[in-house]
């Protein structure tokens, strides 16, 4: 099994397409960081304009932690599309190329190959996320420095002490890995249904867009299915940045406001991953390889 995973990783990282996602993330982050470095004060002023009359904030609002939060809000919506480029091509790309029959006529079962491909695609996804974390968090910390994290929510503000922030990002990135692995497994399922490369990539992206719209629309008919849609839970990494307060309305260091919500989301995402991968294995096992 390990040799199959090595083979799949070797193939992924020998393809030029693999590096598009790494390049795209780097370009986006660098552009945003550059923009905020040059014109960050104006941006911070715009953010704070509604509360400037009632609240005085000392220190550096636009620090590395806030920049990372802004970047994650912007990018974690789009990274799934980059993940789909590789994950949705893992099986169908080989079918299209004609190499799937070479792999499936080796002395390893199709289940082994499918699982090896999924694990390799998952490793790619995690590496992409680590790359995102490195650029968005550590490079931002290096460029903008660190201070307390000041977040504007819809009807309240959250202030997290700088010593209480880093572990929340670790949690958020671990959570995001589940979100992205759900996308990987969805792309994988699409890939098992097709023999061309483009269809599953477009299919995965379309499914994400479709379910995201369902998750965000506040229509009673959709509210019934919303809790079961993976897109409803994908952005709940933000829960790591909602903090409990004591009776004096002071933030409780090390606390998370809604841990059950995070647990439920992780469970829903994990169930989706298992469902999608199992379905892929069953489909591939039954499939006649005609490509």
């Amino acid at each position: 099994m390990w040799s199959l995973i090595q083979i799949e990783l070797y193939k992924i990282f020998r393809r030029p397409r693999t590096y598009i996602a790494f390049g795209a993330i780097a370009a986006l982050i660098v552009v945003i960081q550059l923009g905020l470095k040059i014109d960050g004060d104006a941006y911070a002023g715009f953010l704070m304009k509604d509360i400037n009359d009632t609240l005085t904030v000392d220190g550096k609002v636009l620090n590395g932690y806030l920049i990372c939060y802004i970047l994650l809000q912007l990018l974690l919506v789009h990274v799934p599309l980059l993940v789909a480029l590789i994950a949705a091509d893992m099986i169908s790309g080989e079918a299209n190329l004609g190499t799937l029959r070479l792999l499936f006529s080796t002395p390893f079962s199709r289940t082994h190959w499918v699982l090896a491909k999924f694990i390799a695609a998952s490793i790619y996804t995690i590496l992409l996320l680590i790359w995102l974390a490195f650029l968005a968090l550590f490079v931002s910390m290096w460029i903008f420095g660190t201070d307390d994290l000041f977040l504007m929510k819809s009807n309240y503000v959250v202030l997290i002490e700088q010593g209480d922030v880093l572990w929340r990002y670790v949690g958020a990135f671990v959570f995001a890995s589940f979100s992205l692995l759900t996308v990987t497994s969805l792309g994988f399922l699409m890939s098992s249904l097709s023999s061309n490369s483009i269809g599953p990539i477009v299919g995965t992206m379309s499914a994400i867009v479709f379910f995201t719209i369902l998750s965000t629309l506040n229509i009673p008919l959709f509210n019934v299915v919303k809790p079961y849609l993976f897109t409803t839970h994908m952005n709940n990494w933000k829960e790591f940045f909602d903090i409990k307060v004591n009776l004096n309305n002071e933030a409780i260091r090390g606390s998370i406001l809604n841990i059950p919500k995070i647990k439920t989301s992780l469970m829903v995402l994990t169930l989706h991953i298992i469902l999608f991968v199992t379905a892929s294995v069953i489909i591939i096992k039954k499939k006649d390889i005609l490509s």
Partner: protein
Amino acid sequence: MFGVFCYYYSMAVIKVENISKHFGTLKAVDDLSFEVQAGQVFGFLGQNGSGKSTTIRMLLSLIHPSSGNIELFGKSIQKNRDSILEQVGAIIERPDLYPYLSATEHLQLFAKVRKQKIEASSITSTLEKVGLAHRAKDKVQTFSLGMKQRLGIAIALVHNPSLIILDEPTNGLDPQGIADIRALIQHLAKEEGKTVFVSSHLLSEIEQVAHQILIIHQGKKMVEGVTKELLDPEKRIVQIKTTNDELALASIRTGSFGKYILARKEGIHLKLPTLEIALLNESLVKAGIAVLGIETKNSLEDYFLQITSNA
């Protein structure tokens, strides 16, 4: 040891029993049965779309048969797939490969999926065997179709399998390449004792290398037998060209050569003993028909056309 040797050379490496494959209403393979003995070169012939590749894919468990049984090395492929495929090397139809990898990288990659350790020297010697050693480091995207075909064969051979399945191995090769592959197939069978199952629609290729042939048409077995016996050197297929084919055909039909006439859409074709060709010519001349030429067509291709046109 001798007993084991005798057993190996008498066992059926491939045993196919009544396999059929349906794709919806299309019967791609229909109740096909055959056996391939160890050490044989088995020619699997058929026109494009006759069901050759579907059969080969079933042998490799890429396609699930609708019915029937397949045994390789005396074991069911459905139940013992992994252990069986360890001993099989195959190329299937087109030589589709990874354009961004080199020839050596391809062999290293496919050597990795084998349970036995494959030495680097074995990879080099396999590339030499198929005439690709000089392009070992080049990416496949720079290869011609013929070179890809050679690399496909190298992938099939790199783990030293007992059974080699080659589906249209000479596709895209130039005449020298075709001759090289023919020599390689003969070498594998004679010198290395491999069993080679080779399919083609280029019948002249099979004729020269196969001990046994099977002709498939529209998914059904048309004929199977020893190549030499089927070709029957004692009898020849001849095409006669005359100034008046209608009169010549009528003359042949009424005479003693009528039983040798083959049904063909165009031209006069007969299958007759070699020694009687001169007598046929003489009888036509005596009947006042000018014979422009008698062309001997003793190839498997003619035999194949004869079989399939009668089907």
